[in-house]
């Protein structure tokens, strides 16, 4: 069974994944996902950096029914996570019990199969989950 990323260039492979952010060689601001031009100053020299192994949950909610185009499990957590590198990212959230999500929770990046595509591939996406739970 092959594993494919939901989109190339978003994250590195498990078991110790990182998000791939862009950093502007001009103004030094970081952005995610990486873009051809800096969204802050429109400079076109962008370096790729690995970020977000861990973070802190800022805001969260729970999505109870599948939005259009989404084939993963529901309900699922959704929110904003603050990364030590200064980025605040929009992300899916996973937890053994979604009720344990709360602002300020230390979280850890996971890259896991989200759904199986029409070709039988397991499609990998990223999420953040509680850092205290040992995950493998």
């Amino acid at each position, binding site marked *: 069974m092959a594993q494919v990323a939901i989109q190339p260039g978003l994250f590195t492979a498990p078991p110790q994944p990182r998000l791939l952010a862009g950093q502007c060689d001009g103004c030094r601001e970081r952005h995610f996902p990486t873009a051809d031009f800096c969204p802050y100053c429109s400079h076109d020299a962008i370096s790729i950096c690995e970020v977000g192994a861990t973070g802190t949950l800022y805001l969260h909610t729970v999505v*109870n029914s599948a939005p259009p185009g989404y084939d993963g499990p529901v309900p699922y957590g959704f929110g904003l996570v603050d*990364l030590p590198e200064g980025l605040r990212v*929009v992300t*899916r959230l996973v937890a053994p019990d979604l009720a344990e999500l709360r602002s300020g929770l230390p979280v850890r990046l996971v890259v896991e199969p989200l759904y199986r595509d029409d070709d039988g591939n397991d499609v990998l*996406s990223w999420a953040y989950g509680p850092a205290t739970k040992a995950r493998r």
Partner: protein
Amino acid sequence: MSARAVYVRGVGLHPFGRFDDKDVTRLGQHAVRAGLREAEVGRGGFQAAFCGTVYTGVAAGHKVLTSLGLSGAPIVNVEAGCASGGAALSLGVSQVASGECDTVLVFGMEKMPRGIIRSSFFPPWCEKAGLTPAPAYFALRARRLLQESGVTREHLARVSVKNHGNGVDNPFAMYRKPLTIDQVLASKMVCDPLTLFMLCSPNEGAACVVLGATPGPVGPPVRVLASVVRSHLPGSALGEHTPMAGRIADDPPSPTELAAREAFHKAAVGPADLDVVEVQDTDSGREILSIEELGLCDRADGGAFVADGIGERDGRLPVNPSGGLLSKGEPLGASALGQIVELTWQLRSAADRRQVEGARTALGHTVGRGANASVTILQR
């Protein structure tokens, strides 16, 4: 700059709701005919037309005016998300203020697709990754209010109760049944903390505002003091431009804050001068955030604004006396102009049971994904 005064010469409105037997062109015709009739403007009596719409497709405004007899005037269709009608209005206002036109037809219309609306806004992988549901973004903004503005779940429910209560008296609204706080809190949880009755429904409708360099024949003259559209700055992960990431460090002014500052400056009035407002209430948290961003209360005081009943119909500053989008529903291209119609009626003392007594200065506000915000200030 010696801009001319701009007046609302006439208004027209098609009810907001679901109308399976009418296509969008008919909805637009209804509002346009009503607006032109009230303004006493014939089909050749305007020098430009601006039509706000999002989902209608090619030459939407042209179809409406073709059916009413073309006059050769330029017709421009305007898409700016939830602010489409506000953007059309601002273009019309600048045409009259500059002296380019004496009379401008502005209208907006929409027939929102049924069911869950797939936006072409996000790349497909974002949908597949579950990162696109609009109510989830609304819920994050609402939770921020719970954490940072002293807002409670009861406050969120109270906003919905207020707007549905106002909608009972609005024959142009879709939902005209009163709700209780318990009913709102007990309705289906969509995205915590937002329940189903805290969210507006997409629907259908049309609205028309005829602008002129001189007042119209009906009611006391209503002037457009400012009509402003602003978009976003980079950096805010919760901005209406819905990026996948932003910066922790800063909180740049939102499109609404940018538009409000400019509108108050242009109009030479402040929040304390307002008597009645219609603000974006896609969800009940959005209404409270709009109130904060417009400067109608201090940032982080949104909870107290609701608790003190300031926005109730008998409060110090009634908010959404029309019933807002929560009771009217949201036809994107028409919603901003629907606010202007309601506020014009309020300023003419013609809002029947919804009337805010003695209203003299009014503000309308929309904001949505994209992101654009519109702020309009009217005065009689």
